């Protein structure tokens, strides 16, 4: 069984349209990735909505800096 973290990293890599082998670490600042741009940002929002049924608006998203921070925000908001 994949952990939430492993699953999230897979979804995140896919939303970025990044190479399969791209290493993604929790402490990475995702805005520094070469793939990151305004279109990938939309894909990530769409992915979080489809996979976790969570919508993070622009104001809150701006405050998030790392991959781990994003996963934490999703974890907090997941409807149980």
């Amino acid at each position, binding site marked *: 069984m994949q952990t939430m973290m492993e699953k999230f990293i897979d979804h995140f890599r896919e939303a970025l349209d990044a190479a399969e082998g791209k290493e993604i670490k929790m402490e990475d600042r995702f805005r520094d990735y070469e793939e990151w741009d*305004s*279109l990938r*940002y*939309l894909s990530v*929002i*769409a992915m979080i909505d*489809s996979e976790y049924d969570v*919508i993070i*608006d622009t104001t809150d*998203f701006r405050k998030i800096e790392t991959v781990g921070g994003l996963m934490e925000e999703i974890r907090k908001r997941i409807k149980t």
Partner: protein
Amino acid sequence: MAYQKIENVRISGISACVPKTVVSNLNSPVFLSGDDAAKFISTTGIKERRIASADICSSDLCYNAAEKLIGELGWDRKEIDCLVFITQTPDYIVPATSCILQDRLGLSSECYSFDITLGCSGWVYGVSIMGSLLSTGCFRKGLLLVGETTTKTKSPTDKSTFPLFGDAGTATCMEYSPKAPPMYFHTGTDGSKHKVIYIPDGAFRNPTTLQSLNSEEVEPGVTRNRLQYIMDGGAVFVFSITKPPQSIKILMEKAAVASEKIDYYFLHQANKIMVEKILGKLKVPVDKAPTSYESFGNTSMSSIPLTMITAKRTDLVQSRLNLIICGFGGGLSWATGYVTTDHIVCPELIEI
């Protein structure tokens, strides 16, 4: 709740007009590389757009759409009791463009005519407004003109807006008809986000000054002045995947209509990722939701009637269809309708 049921009104015909000039996104200088352009096209689905030259206004596109439609319907112009024109790009700040169109179309001086300012929710709103005007039978025939030369408000170096939009104008003829099935509408507004889609200067809150024309570099390679359109793409995206599907669900529940009864979902053609996301949330298969963004881009409030004409003209002419229509955008403003069309008149797409 902004829910309406409107009786005794039918849609008689719909037409659309676009400028002849086609601009491809693949070779657009707004992108720094061919790779950027390809990425943009694969996400948004927008390959090309129509752009109005300096001498074509929204009213010209709508005028041509109306002339053709009135002709094919064989309507007597004297019988057109009301004219509603919806745009964000009028001919002048003063007076209302609907007055100019009343004269140009040779309509009676007794024609009840006015303008409305709305963005991408405009056509669905317009159908509900025209429906309300006609439903008592005091007015018998109405002409709804909806169009925008939206590309004229965009900075050509702003890749967050410029390659997304295209110009178009449409005409919708509606009439009092006691046998027509009811139309249902649900509408919503969130003005707290009015700056998410916004042109700062040029009206009366921030009148035009010399500074309005100063181009500022807002990010590398993106310059814009204060008379040009700003869009917070992320905020618009979050809005678009939340409110429109909610509104469609609310309306279908209120109108007690099952999804099997719907022939087509005509959604505002913002772009591929937004349209597909909304469909996914509603669990509607993509073949039930025709598109036009590939060849015309986001044509603002014209996008729904333009899609009807370019993707499903024959169906609209030859059959009776139950349709969900949903427009959403600047304001923020959104509107959903459940309407039935019955062998309506649809001239082929007009190009000028």
